[in-house]
């Protein structure tokens, strides 16, 4: 099996990538501005609902129930979708999914496809596989288009070009669409994209989409979006291929009631998405006449097998945790080296890859808990981060300096006598570094700390010494 998550296996480690991004003033300003705006909108529309906490609890319960009965619901979906004229394909990993999709396009004798709303296709590296087979993929979601034309990587699961501002988008469009007179006026930019995409919508008659939800009982697929470009992809072409991670399934049509309240408010701060496309199989004479669903595992069943980690699969890809995360706000999505950025990426990417890569991702969090607070599916992300950290340590993948330091600390904290002794040693050891009552320059792995912060030296008397003295004088 070849399970991979985009280029995550080859990406630099989080601290290295983050260090570079922290210095990029443009990205930092763009990310800060965008996350502030979305977060503000999200908080306002969430506050409108009295039953927000019940909705979260319902979403969590539905997802947990579904995951525990995943096989049954997937088979139910397959039967219902097939019955409605769709064709269901199963893919164990990225390669299998890519081969299936390439095969379907070649069987239609096509060399160009339009794509929309499928982060999962980035997970499996579909565009690279298509291009290798001589098929040209065109992204039609505006943000995905910006990323594709800019030969860039997505930095956010809902707003993939969140790290770009208008001026940068203008540059990309001017170059790639050959529009030298284009300004950075949002309406002009949108018009340029519209004209560029309309031509493709009218000409290319095979599309690839992702899905937000798939419904077991009816075989229905649901895509929500803001632009209408998705609606074009889902309705104009003759052939539609929808790539779906197996965790996207929900049991009943009425479960959408819960998720379609939670998702738009969490994702973009909207009460409802402008476009909600919900379709079942094929309707003769209306929309795509050949409909394929590719159900993708790519490591998900392994995640499911882990008792603590499996809640990661409750994710509905709203991106609220990214916008709320103070780490993401500083670095943007590229630091995470994966198509899945932010807190959810920090737990999803390592797990999909069986902890083989990205061992620094579970540590890319201060454990502040803001992600858990906003998650509409109540995924306890800090809990999973801690669980994955314990796996890193268990697998002996933690850095040697850290293992030594933690061992020494554990020995020093073993009992009170040792702690007192360690305090005395610390007082002596800090002497060479103490200047004017502060420690400002420590060596080794402590250097990062004192680079921007003074450290208070260990005072002469510990609390326990003060207590003992006070006790005696009583």
């Amino acid at each position, binding site marked *: 099996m070849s399970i991979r998550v985009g280029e995550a296996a080859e990406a630099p480690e989080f601290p290295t990538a983050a260090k570079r991004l922290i210095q990029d003033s443009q990205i930092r300003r763009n990310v800060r501005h965008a996350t502030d705006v979305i977060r503000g909108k999200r908080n306002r529309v969430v506050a409108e609902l009295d039953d927000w906490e019940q909705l979260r609890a319902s979403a969590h319960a539905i997802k947990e129930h579904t995951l525990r009965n995943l096989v049954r619901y997937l088979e139910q979906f397959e039967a219902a979708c097939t019955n409605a004229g769709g064709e269901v394909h199963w893919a164990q990993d990225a390669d299998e999914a890519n081969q299936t999709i390439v095969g379907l396009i070649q069987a239609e004798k096509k060399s160009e496809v339009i794509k929309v709303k499928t982060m999962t296709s980035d997970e499996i590296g579909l565009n690279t596989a298509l291009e290798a087979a001589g098929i040209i993929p065109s992204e039609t979601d505006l943000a995905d288009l910006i990323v594709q034309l800019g030969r860039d990587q997505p930095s956010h699961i809902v707003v993939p070009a969140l790290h770009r501002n208008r001026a940068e988008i203008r540059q990309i469009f001017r170059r790639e669409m050959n529009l030298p007179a284009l300004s950075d006026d949002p309406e002009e930019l949108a018009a340029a994209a519209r004209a560029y995409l309309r031509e493709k919508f009218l000409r290319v008659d095979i599309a690839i989409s992702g899905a937000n939800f798939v419904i077991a009982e009816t075989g229905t697929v649901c895509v929500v979006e803001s632009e209408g470009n998705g609606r074009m992809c889902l309705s104009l072409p003759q052939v539609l291929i929808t790539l779906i991670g197996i965790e996207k399934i929900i049991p009943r049509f009425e479960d959408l009631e819960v998720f379609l309240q939670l998702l738009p408010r969490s994702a973009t701060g909207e009460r409802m998405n402008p476009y909600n496309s919900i379709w079942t199989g094929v309707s003769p004479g209306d929309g795509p006449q050949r409909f394929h669903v590719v159900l993708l595992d790519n490591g998900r069943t392994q995640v499911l097998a882990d008792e603590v980690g499996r809640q990661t699969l409750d994710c509905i890809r709203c991106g609220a945790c990214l916008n709320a995360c*103070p780490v993401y706000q500083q670095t943007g999505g590229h630091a995470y080296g994966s198509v899945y950025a932010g807190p959810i990426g920090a737990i999803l990417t390592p797990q999909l890859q069986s902890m083989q890569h990205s061992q620094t991702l579970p540590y890319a969090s*201060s*454990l502040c808990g*803001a992600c858990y607070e906003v998650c509409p599916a109540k995924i306890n992300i800090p809990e999973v981060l801690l669980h994955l950290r*314990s796996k890193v340590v268990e697998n002996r993948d933690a850095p040697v300096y*850290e293992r030594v330091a933690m061992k020494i*600390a554990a020995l020093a904290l073993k*009992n009170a006598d040792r702690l007192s002794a360690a305090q005395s040693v610390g007082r002596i050891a800090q002497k060479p570094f103490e200047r004017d009552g502060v420690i400002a320059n420590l060596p080794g792995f402590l250097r990062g700390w004192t680079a921007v912060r003074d450290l208070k030296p260990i005072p002469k008397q510990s609390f*326990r010494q*003060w207590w003992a003295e006070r006790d005696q004088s009583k």
Partner: protein
Amino acid sequence: MTISLFITCYNDTLFPETGKATVILLERLGHTVEFRAAQTCCGQMHFNTGYVGDALSMMRSTLDVFATAEVICIPSSSCVAMMRDQYPHIAQSTGEPALINAVSRFLPKVFELSELLVDKLGITDVGAFFPHAVTLHPSCHSIRSLHIGNKPQELLKCVRGLTLIELPDARQCCGFGGTFSLKNPEVSAAMLSDKVQCVLETRAEFCTAIDNSCLMHIGGALSRQRTGVRTVHIAEILAATDAGAIQ
């Protein structure tokens, strides 16, 4: 009431003033404070970095030390969060019924300092005097794990002479995160820079919190940048009186 103090390892080592203040404050309120000298650490640093085995040993020892205590006061919300959020899971993972029971007997006795004062002792005016402009950093563990609400603010509002100034973007993490600040020093520093900016915007003289861990972090930058703003644990404010600050 006899209150057993869990000082926490870093307060014991780096911030003894916080411990002294807690003792003085609780004694002034008419309670007996005891300090069980065998205590060391709750295990948070090891657990949060992935060293579960070491954390388990520290949890065992903490449970032993406080087995007979009636009320345990901890002037640190992150250590309390470690106990409430993690001890039950750690105990469960061992499958030892005795340990699981010990944790469930232990947890109801644990109070963070402001919880102890406001919830358990029902007091917000502790008779303190602190004639300074102060802003409060609500630590992540206090708001998102302990759900402490406005207890620290209620206590501070009753302190005579104290002007409480609201911190902008107060709920944002300061970027400490324990070993996070060592493993991701650049990101941590960037987060800290935002927090310091907010503290400076208040024009307060002191930044306080119910956690010295955040304060060590914020204070480290306030000191490096020669801002003249100091950090002080809430216990030290509450222990201060008109008769003079504690030594």
